[in-house]
């Protein structure tokens, strides 16, 4: 379980929160003039990022506020929480070395979990 640092209530167990999907997808205002494809883009299409991802959470049992969070979905590291309407802060993350690959450390992929020579040399 994650510990999520609610901007209002402080760090709490993940069980108090509800995941609310990708962040920064604004609901279109001029829906009448959109094509079906544009509308589908809003309703259904997602980036589903592997790596640094801006997402929304809801502190369901606490302050009942939605907020944004930057998390590395390849490693589950949480980098920042910030309020709705704010722009995501700049952070550095252990990003996957290749598009489908894994971060340079703490692999989620079971095939890679022994230190590379470079890592050994660096440590």
């Amino acid at each position, binding site marked *: 379980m994650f510990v999520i640092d609610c901007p209002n209530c402080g760090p709490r167990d993940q069980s108090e929160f509800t995941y609310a999907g990708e962040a920064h997808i604004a609901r279109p205002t001029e829906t009448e003039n959109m094509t079906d494809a544009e509308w589908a883009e809003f309703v259904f299409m997602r980036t589903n990022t592997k790596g640094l991802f801006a997402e929304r959470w809801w502190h369901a*049992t*606490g*302050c009942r506020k939605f907020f944004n969070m930057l998390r590395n979905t390849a490693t589950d590291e949480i980098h920042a929480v910030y309020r709705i309407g704010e722009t995501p802060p700049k952070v550095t993350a252990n990003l996957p070395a290749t598009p489908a690959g894994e971060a340079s450390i703490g692999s989620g992929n079971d095939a890679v979990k022994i230190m590379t020579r470079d890592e050994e040399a660096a440590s």
Partner: protein
Amino acid sequence: MNATLTAPVRRSPLAHRSAVSAPDDLLHLSERAFDAKIVLRGLPEVLAPAVGKVTGLAMPEATRSTANETHRLLWQSPDEFLLLGPVDGELELMAALTAELDGQHVQIVNVTDYHTTLVLSGPKARETLMTLSTLDLHPRGFALDQVAGTTFGHALGWLVQTRDDEAEGGPSFEILVRWSHADYLFCELTHGARAFGMPEARPVSGEKMEI
């Protein structure tokens, strides 16, 4: 008024439970029903004068509560507060607050009957809560007047510490729990405190389900 009616009876969700205690005053669990409970939604600066005037309380900081002899005000979110007042006093409180806040962008909702209050006190109260809650309930993590909305097993509730650990009888906590979760929580707390000799309350059952 209709003469045929019997006098109204107010029943709490735990009317069928009596207070229970573990030996040696390790733990006491009881219900305190019918406190007046009012949700106040609005910005604290908007609410503060009215709350001060009606209750004498200051607005609490985040995750804290303020209290005096008659009232306690719980922070629930930056724009949501739960005011607890004297038993059966909710209508007066509603009226007073409504009058003070007339025309403001606020919401005042009577939730007296929505919640009931479980009072858990004694030296083993923290450990008992830890069987159900993921909060850091060590005295370093949760102290007097602190407030948290959280889950207790599958029940939702607001936890507040109302008596200090050093006080006679040990710390005391109150959990505001919704009506329909009250019995579950009461039973889970006694269940979690078995090891301290707490007599166990069994969940009410006996429902028949068939086709």
